[in-house]
């Protein structure tokens, strides 16, 4: 699996067209996952990231596979962007042995260290100090790797955010803290829980750079993360980046997002990260208009095929729950 994941990662790192394709793939896989849950074919819950694909792909494009990424339950897009295969991701979500941790974790728990994906965090904020710790390893060992923590707008109000960033700042750790501000924490609009406009302003509380980034623009995301990572690699310490983005679907499986003001979703659709980037690539002549439909169609076909493969794959046996408890 690892070498395929690494190849997939290399693709987005080096090729902007691959970034486009990966965003389309993420959308297709997430749509498929939502569909499977809606049909009642999968147990549990899921948190998809339609609309946020530019953040996932932009971040993965800017980082090296030896960099470490701590992301959340809303991490399918990041996992795919970092290189995990749709089979690894869907397999895990669907609880099959082909999943990235063998199907015992489910939708909130992906992992593949070969491309730097730490076990994803189902506890809000928990990944922030953990990323600081991964950055500590790089600092102690003198490598120039960085650790990245991705978290939501809602997570910026939890203690671990504060403690983790402060620790990284005082130790000048090579970390990049990235807030995916998708406007909602669960069903609450950010303004109901957060008394400031931009999470990035909180950087000031730690004496580190803070920047608001257009999270719908994969190029902008990539550039901002590259710059922050370069700073971190150079020993200048962490940064806080805020990606303004939007999730098209509800918070989780059961959420129909009735709390959204009318027209809001539609406004964001107009700045769809995939469409925007596709148009840009067309303008740059890196992509032909006809290819767009093909890419989408083949991503959908892939997602459907992978779902079938997962359906056909075995579920983990009873013994699996006893594995990896104690080393």
């Amino acid at each position, binding site marked *: 699996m690892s070498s395929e994941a690494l190849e997939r990662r290399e693709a987005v790192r080096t090729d902007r067209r691959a970034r486009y394709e990966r965003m389309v793939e993420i959308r297709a896989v997430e749509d498929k996952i939502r569909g499977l849950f809606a049909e009642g074919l999968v147990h549990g819950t899921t948190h998809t990231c339609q609309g946020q694909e530019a953040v996932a792909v932009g971040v993965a494009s800017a980082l090296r596979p030896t960099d470490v990424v701590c992301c959340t339950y809303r991490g399918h897009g990041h996992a795919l962007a970092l290189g995990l295969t749709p089979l690894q991701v869907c397999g895990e979500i669907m609880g099959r042995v082909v999943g990235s941790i063998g199907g015992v974790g*489910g939708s909130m728990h992906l992992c593949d260290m070969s491309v730097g994906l730490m076990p994803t965090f189902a506890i809000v904020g928990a990944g922030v100090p953990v990323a600081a710790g991964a950055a500590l390893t790089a600092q102690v060992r003198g490598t120039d790797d960085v650790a990245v923590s991705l978290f939501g707008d809602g997570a910026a109000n939890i203690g671990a955010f504060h403690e983790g960033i402060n620790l990284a700042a005082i130790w000048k750790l090579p970390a990049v803290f990235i807030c995916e501000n998708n406007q909602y924490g669960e069903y609450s609009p950010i303004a109901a829980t957060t008394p400031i406009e931009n999470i990035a302003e909180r950087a000031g509380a730690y004496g580190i750079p803070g920047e608001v980034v257009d999270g719908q623009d994969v190029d902008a995301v990539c550039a901002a993360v590259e710059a922050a990572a370069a700073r971190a690699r150079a020993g200048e310490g962490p940064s806080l980046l805020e990606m303004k983005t939007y999730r098209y679907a509800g918070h989780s499986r059961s959420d129909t997002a009735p709390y959204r003001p009318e027209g809001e979703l539609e406004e964001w659709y107009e700045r769809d990260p995939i469409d925007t980037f596709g148009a840009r690539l067309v303008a740059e002549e890196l992509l032909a208009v006809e290819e767009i439909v093909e890419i989408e169609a083949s991503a959908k076909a892939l997602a459907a095929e992978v779902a079938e493969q997962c359906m056909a794959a075995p579920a983990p046996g009873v013994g699996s729950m006893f594995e990896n408890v104690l080393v």
Partner: protein
Amino acid sequence: MARMRMNQAIAAAIADEMRENPDVVVFGEDVAVAEGPFKTSAGLLAEFGPLRVRDTPIAEMGFMGAAVGAAATGLRPVTEIMFVEFLGVALDQLVTEAAKFSYLSGGAVNVPMVMRASVGAGLGFGCQHSQVMESWIVGAPGLKIAVVSGPHNAYGLTRAAIRDDNPVAVLEPRVLYAGRGDVTTGPEGIIPLGRAAQPAGGDDVTLVCCGSTVRTALEAASGAEGWSADVIDLQTLQPWDAEAVLDSVRRTGRLATVEECPYSGGWGADIVSTVATEAFGDLSAPPIRLTAPDVHVPFGKELEQRYLPNAGYVAAQVGELLATGESPPHWWERDGALA
């Protein structure tokens, strides 16, 4: 008497208390506008307004601490920890502050707050959202703990918890929210904390359970052949009703606890140990605990069901205990169990 789902019974209990006492306030993540992720606060915002029913930021330490401060100064806050694991970021406020405030004020300050939390496995939420974690709070003098097992006592215990002048944790098995049952509403429906219920009676064994395992125990008992069981739903885990359990064991001579959690550190150890000490001479067979294994809650429908002790397992283990007079091995200790 009304028929309702357990989440509705909880909302009804809170509403009834809010009607009676303007000091009762409710806050937590998405409990107001969205009426709770499990709809356990349906209707509260509409009836009681935004001053008393509030959404919080994602900040369990913050709002749990706010509950302590509000309770210490006269309100009766009911807070919601969406999944009990999130208490891992807020435990200090419940155990080290709330539970000690009366003591630390020489009795001048009470902390009549309620921490409600959804708990347990069975819905495929994975290992960070499927535990009960009573162990985090059982060893905390000054704190009471109730565990609800259906609409009826969810209503009654929730009301009692809100009326109690101590901090009270109310654990709500998530898997039961949608289940329906008859509920005695109104003041008669209030169920005093500290007292067990006995949903079934019998002669051969005492099955002690609470929360999600009550139905497991009842199912095991009702299908039993050749033996009958006193089924004791503890309802309150701290302080637990030792008298009810001891009385029953003195009669049946045998004890089995049915627990949702891993063997190590589970609540049943306190029960078994106390019974072994206090009713040693009355025991005619080793007391046993039927629990989950010492592993993380697995994802996957079948695995998760396998993880939990089910009625068939309970019946089989108890049957073996009765037949042999010896404690049967746990399922995961048997040959070939993990294949």
